[in-house]
Structures are given as structure tokens and as C-alpha cells.
């Protein structure tokens, strides 16, 4: 198979053992890479005892995987996975940056990281030089400090390996901030200052392994492809279409902070109590005032939709962050009652510095604020912090407590679902109705009540095998590729590991036949639409579904109650042009059943033995029998 470097690295942090390994062509054809391959590796290694594996324990496996299209498609991503401490299933969580390219150029398609280091460590890779290094100097440090150290130190280290080379470029770095180090479930795996793989909570998994960072520098070329001319033709064609997106290039998803609220009524406001606003202060131009005037992107990107926001003066002076992109505009903005770009930029910066996921972190902050508003959490419970809507500094203080697991922060660090469980117990009141999540994952900032936001249908979050992940929403039909990608299409992007924005947007997309031809030009394998949607994608879906249903040890989902929207989504919208709108329970249940049927699950949402048989997943049948899901 072309497009692959041809080998993977397995690093055991407990023993320090490092070895190379390969996967058979059959496995690569079936599971591709990234999310698909992660699912396969996790099932093979942990599936038989899945429900007993603690996501934050040494037994969990951290996967950092490229895909065959990584580096060849405009916009580079890397896929992070493992057993998720949020959903207790498998989530393929991607983050942008040059990491995937550097890793392939170093000669590896991915990293399989097991065990737990004795002391804070980081992994250093320079071509075939692989080392586990001491992270004492940066353990406890936030993003900027950690990166500054790692860049300088690593360039020195590379220079001693590549003597007389000339100036050495910085390596690519994935790292965690304090939120990850302290094993919170809202921590992201970070890249640069502002990029994060947030869904899944793999920052906490890195922290549990005492792994501060992974540094990689590759000096080789990207692997050979099957048909370079065709690959470049696709590269140019995708770029051409990307270049036409003038507004998306100019404002990125940062136009969403106004649009999703004012036009679509789908933006989280005050912990999702509302989804509509039309604040002038939140229009894109108001953010533009703080932007460095340039496009910003990562390796190969044609859209370069990121912006850099810098606060050069005022009380939040010194903050740097991206756009903020829409998810951060919403979750650490409107969701906390913040409608000022400056405050939103500052809070995004704080969240980045702590290595927290903006969505999961913002969701738990909003949840705490609503409990405070309702008098369930007192100022005393919050140790003097008064998280009133719009009080940026109070939220910044609370975020710090979460990242360091201090006081109430220790409970909130568990994310909305688990925090709600604990607080309900302590207070003797059921607060789960204020926790806006699906199967432990706070949902993306795209509400479903108004029906106007394309990202998710009513079953989008409820039936996704990646739970609340808005980049992988389940859809009817399951093979939907527009206006937003359904889960099976998203799964291809996450497995071949390329950027969704450059190839699949509501207003632009690479047609299925094109994307599979692109894949063929890289790998040499002719993958038909039918083969992907009716077989390969379903196989991955069933494995992910199975591990999600197995869950454990601290959470277990039941389809009849948990393949559902958060309670708040059943309340009518209280304001805006869609006032009064909500979801229809009967229609939802019909859609859910339809979805189950069309992917081969029974009416309870359990994979059917005959479907599993057809997909060759015999061990899954045995496992589901063992736990009593099928007789």
C-alpha cells in the first residue's frame, strides 16, 4: 500500500521498551488509519476486557495515528485515540498542525503508547532516534512556557544528532497543559498555542501516563504515492475550490459566533438555556479588530481559516489565541453569557494555556454557573468565586481550579456528566437536567431544536458512536455527505486523516467518487463508494458502537435512555424567531429506529448478530453474548 511510511512505533512508558511494528495490508485496507485503525487496535488489544479498563489507568493505550492522505490533502491533521475517559468508548479526535507530516517524514505512520512513566516524561523522535526524556523542567507549566522550552531544547537535541546540517527547523509538538497533567476529563491534546484534540479527553490520558509531550522531527520525504500526477491534480483542484471561499477564508468559523445565534438559533447561551442572540458586539468585524492581519493555517492548507487574535492592551493584555473559532466563541463566550470579543479572546487564551478543551471546559463552566444561578451551588461551595453570567474573570478563576483540581474544581474536572452525578449526590437534588452532554461528551455548539443548523439532525448526537462529537454526528441517511457530513463520511476523513474543512463543508465538498479516487491515487487501492459505506465504514462503526456500549468501569450507557438528546434539548426554545420550537419525541424515536435499522442494529440499538456475522466480526458476537446484550 502506498501513502504509508510502512511502520508504526510502539512505546511502553512503564518499561521504556521501544519497538517498531507493522500491520498487514488487509488491516490497512479495511481500517485505513487514524480513527478506523485506532478502533481496530483497541478492540484487538483491549476488547475482551474493555469494561474493566480504566481510561485513566496504565492499561489504556494512547494512539497517535496518521492516515494515508495525511500530508497529501490540503490541511494536515493527526488523529488521537484510546479508551475515552469521557464516553468510555473509542473516539477518534483530530488536531491540526504539522505533526502528522513530521511523523511520516520520520518514517512512522503512528505511535502506540502503552503503560505509565515513573516520572514526568516526554517522547522525542528524530527520524529513527527515539527517546523517552525527562519532563521535569516543564511539568506543571502552561502552554507558552512548555512550548518555549520544548522548541529550544529539541532544536539543540536535533543539532547534536544532525551535525553540520545548518539551521534546524522546529519539530512538531503535541503536549498537555495542567488540565491534562492533573488527569481532568476536560483536557485536550494540544498543538501550537491554540490547536486541540478535545473530544475524547485524551489530554487526561496523556497526563495519566505522565506524558507531557511528544516531539517529532522527520527529515525524509513523505512516502511514495501510487500516482503522483493524479494526487497533485486533486491537491490543485481542492485548493482551487478552497480559494473561492472568500468569506470563510477571511473570517473562518469565527463568523459563527454571530451567525449561529442570530440566523440559526443554534448557539449555546447561558448553558443552553437559550440558543438565539443577535448581539452586534459579536459580529465578525468586532473580532476582526483584534486580529493580526493575516491568514493562518497549517501544512498544505489552502483555506487558512484561522486568525490570530492578540490583546495588546487593556486589562487582559498579553492574551493570544486563534479566532477564537466558533466553538470557543460559543462555549467560552455566549454559553457563559459573554458577548464581548475581548473577553472571549481572553478566556479562550486562558483555556488554551491550561490545555483544556474549549467545548468540554466551557460546558462545565456553564453548568456550574447555572447551578450557582439556581442557588444549588453556593459561593461557599465555589470558594468565593461567583460565576455570574458574563463575569469573565470569575470563569477564568474557576477554570484554573478545574485544571489543578482544587476544591470544587476537583469535581468539575470530571466533566458535566460525572460532575452532575457527584453534585446530585452531595446536594441530594437531581441536577442531571442541567448537564448538556450525550454519553459523557458535552455536545458541539450546534443546537438541534431550531432545526436550522445543518451540523446535526435530531438523532445526530444521540446516535453517534462518538457521542456528543459534532464533527461525527449520526445522520439519516447514514451515508449523507451534505449539507454536512454524516458519521460514515466523517469516519473516512478521520481514518484517512485529512481536514474536514478543506474537503467537506456545507457549501463545498469533494464528491464521494472524487474523495475515493483521491484515496486510490495515494494508496493504489480502488475503494468504491459501496465498499466503504456498506462494509468498511460499518465494520468500524460496529466496533466503536460495541466498545461504547461496553463502557465501564465508571460509566455504562443503555441505548433506550442514553441514545437520547440532553434533557435541555427537549425544552422549548424560549426566545428568538424560533421561540417555542423543540424536538418532537415521536419523530425522534421514529428516526432513531430508522437509523438503528439502516446500520444493522436491532430495535434496542444493539448490533445484530447477522450484521456482525456479515462484517466478519465474530468475536464481537461472543463478547456481546458474554455481557448479555444478545442471547
Amino acid at each position, binding site marked *: 500500500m502506498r501513502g504509508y511510511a510502512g511502520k508504526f512505533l510502539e512505546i511502553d512508558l512503564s518499561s521504556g521498551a521501544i519497538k517498531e511494528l507493522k500491520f498487514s495490508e488487509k488491516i490497512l485496507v479495511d481500517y485505513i488509519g487514524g480513527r478506523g485503525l485506532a478502533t481496530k487496535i483497541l478492540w484487538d488489544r483491549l476488547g475482551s476486557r474493555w469494561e474493566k479498563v480504566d481510561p485513566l489507568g496504565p492499561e489504556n493505550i494512547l494512539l497517535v495515528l496518521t492516515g494515508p492522505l495525511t*500530508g*497529501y490533502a490540503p490541511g494536515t491533521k493527526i488523529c488521537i485515540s484510546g479508551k475515552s475517559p469521557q464516553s468510555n468508548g473509542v473516539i477518534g479526535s483530530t488536531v491540526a498542525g*504539522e505533526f502528522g*507530516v513530521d511523523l511520516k*517524514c520520520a518514517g512512522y505512520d503512528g505511535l502506540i503508547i502503552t503503560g505509565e512513566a515513573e516520572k514526568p516524561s516526554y517522547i522525542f523522535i528524530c527520524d529513527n532516534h527515539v527517546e523517552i526524556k525527562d519532563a521535569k523542567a516543564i511539568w506543571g507549566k502552561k502552554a*507558552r512556557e512548555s*512550548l*518555549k522550552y520544548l*522548541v529550544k531544547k529539541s532544536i539543540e537535541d536535533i543539532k547534536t544528532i*544532525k551535525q*553540520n*546540517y*545548518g*539551521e534546524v*527547523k*522546529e519539530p512538531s509538538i503535541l503536549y498537555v497543559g495542567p488540565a491534562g497533567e492533573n488527569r481532568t476529563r476536560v483536557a485536550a491534546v494540544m498543538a*501550537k*498555542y*491554540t490547536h486541540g484534540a478535545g473530544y475524547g479527553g485524551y489530554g487526561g490520558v496523556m497526563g495519566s501516563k505522565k506524558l507531557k509531550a511528544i516531539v517529532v522531527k*522527520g*527529515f*525524509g*520525504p*513523505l512516502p*511514495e504515492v501510487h500516482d*503522483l500526477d493524479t494526487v*497533485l491534480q486533486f491537491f490543485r483542484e481542492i*485548493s482551487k475550490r478552497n*480559494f473561492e471561499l472568500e468569506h470563510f*477564508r477571511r473570517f473562518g468559523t469565527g463568523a459563527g459566533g454571530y451567525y449561529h445565534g442570530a440566523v440559526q438559533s443554534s448557539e449555546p447561551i447561558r448553558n443552553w438555556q437559550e440558543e438565539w442572540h443577535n448581539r452586534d458586539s459579536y459580529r465578525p468585524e468586532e473580532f476582526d479588530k483584534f486580529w*493580526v*492581519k*493575516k*491568514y*493562518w*493555517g*497549517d*501544512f*498544505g*492548507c*489552502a483555506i*487558512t481559516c484561522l486568525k*490570530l487574535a*492578540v490583546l*495588546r492592551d487593556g486589562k487582559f493584555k*498579553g492574551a*493570544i489565541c486563534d479566532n477564537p473559532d466558533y466553538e470557543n466563541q460559543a462555549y467560552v463566550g455566549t454559553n457563559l453569557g459573554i458577548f464581548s470579543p475581548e473577553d472571549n479572546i481572553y478566556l479562550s487564551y486562558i483555556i488554551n494555556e491550561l490545555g483544556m478543551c474549549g467545548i468540554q471546559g466551557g460546558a462545565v463552566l456553564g453548568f456550574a454557573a447555572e447551578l450557582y444561578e439556581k442557588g444549588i451551588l453556593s459561593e461557599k461551595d465555589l470558594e468565593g468565586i461567583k460565576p455570574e453570567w458574563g463575569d469573565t474573570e470569575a470563569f477564568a478563576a474557576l477554570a484554573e481550579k478545574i485544571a489543578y483540581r482544587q476544591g470544587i474544581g476537583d469535581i468539575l474536572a470530571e466533566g458535566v456528566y460525572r460532575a452532575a452525578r457527584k453534585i446530585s449526590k452531595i446536594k441530594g437534588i437531581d441536577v442531571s437536567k442541567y448537564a448538556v452532554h450525550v454519553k459523557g461528551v458535552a455536545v458541539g455548539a450546534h443546537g438541534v431544536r431550531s432545526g436550522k443548523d445543518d451540523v446535526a439532525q435530531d438523532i445526530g448526537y444521540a446516535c453517534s458512536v462518538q457521542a456528543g462529537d459534532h464533527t461525527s454526528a449520526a445522520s439519516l441517511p447514514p451515508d449523507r455527505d451534505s449539507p454536512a457530513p454524516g458519521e460514515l463520511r466523517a469516519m473516512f476523513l478521520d481514518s484517512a486523516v485529512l481536514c474536514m474543512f478543506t474537503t467537506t463543508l456545507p457549501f463545498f465538498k469533494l464528491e464521494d467518487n472524487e474523495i475515493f479516487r483521491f484515496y486510490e491515487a495515494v494508496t493504489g487501492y480502488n475503494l468504491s463508494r459501496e465498499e466503504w459505506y456498506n462494509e468498511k465504514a460499518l465494520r468500524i462503526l460496529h466496533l466503536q458502537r460495541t466498545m461504547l456500549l461496553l463502557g465501564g468501569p465508571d460509566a455504562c450507557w443503555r441505548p433506550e435512555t442514553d441514545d437520547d438528546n440532553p434533557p435541555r434539548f427537549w425544552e422549548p426554545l424560549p426566545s428568538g424567531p424560533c421561540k417555542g420550537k423543540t424536538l418532537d419525541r415521536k419523530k425522534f424515536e421514529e428516526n432513531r429506529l430508522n437509523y438503528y435499522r439502516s446500520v444493522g442494529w436491532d430495535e434496542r440499538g444493539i448490533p445484530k448478530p447477522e450484521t456482525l456475522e456479515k462484517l466478519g466480526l465474530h468475536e464481537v458476537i461472543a463478547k456481546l453474548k458474554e455481557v448479555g446484550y444478545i442471547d
Partner: protein
Amino acid sequence: MKGPIWIERLYERCSGCRRCEIACSLLHEGRIWPEASRIRVFMLIPGVEVPHLCFQCEDYPCVKACPFEALSINSETGAVNVDESKCNACGLCIKACPAKVPHMHPMKNHVIICDLCGGRPRCVETCTEGRWNALRVTSRERDFSYKSLAKTPEELTRKVAEKLYGKEIAREVYE
């Protein structure tokens, strides 16, 4: 454009897309190979991306420093040409370069330096096409010291960071 050319760099505009590296390595190596690109985008601070390539100094210290006559000046374009068969990878040109531009080919035994693509710089084409306009072809003018612009990635990073982030923040994130 007739006669010697020069590539103007407007660092504050660089998006970090690194498509210039892709274009350059495809032309010279037939592969996507960032380290073998004659233009390298340094990102010593996130958000501060610095495309780094030969400045074609008026007195070409690198050419003078080479004891093997591996480097020569292309009379048409003004580029430094590397004779791969003569270069023995001693690295003296790197030491002589005020900007530390030349670097070793990542897999072969010779240095690589921008050759201006024989007069049609692919990096500039790709940068223009995407409307980043961080690179631009200009004619090479008399009475101007191009060497005065030749700075190392660190020096350029410091300057660009100060422009983008302001002095104080730049110091905090870099020094």
C-alpha cells in the same frame, strides 16, 4: 521579468501554509519533502511563521567561502548554484552566510540553496495563487544592499514577533 530577480518577503503575511515548501520540493526532488525544500518556513513561535531562503547577497560570501568551487553565481538570475558533484558538505558556506541559509540535503552529501527555479520561482507562484502574498518577485535593483536583509531565522522571528504580538509579548514567549 527580464534579468536578475529577487524574492521579496513580507513576513507578517505568511500564513504558515508551507505550500511553498511543497512546491519547491516537488520541483527539485519530485516529492513532497519539507526538509529538502530550498525555502523553509520556520515557526519558532506559533503564529510567527518565517519563510527562509537565500537573499542573494551582493558580495555572495558563501560563494567566496567555498574551497571547492562548488558554488557559483547564475549570471542570468543572480541565484547561487550548487554543483552537487563538487560540494563535499564541509559546511563552510553555512558559516559564511549571514542568514545561515544553506542547509544540507537531508539525504545526500551536499548543501542546497535556492536556485530561483531558473527564473520562475515556484514558491512565489504558489504563495500568490493562495492570495497570501508573503512572497513576491521583484527585479533585482542596483544601489540596494540585499545582504542587509539577510538575517537568521531567530533574528527574523524576533522582529516579526514584535510586529505581530508587540514587544512585551514577543519577549515573554521567545526569550
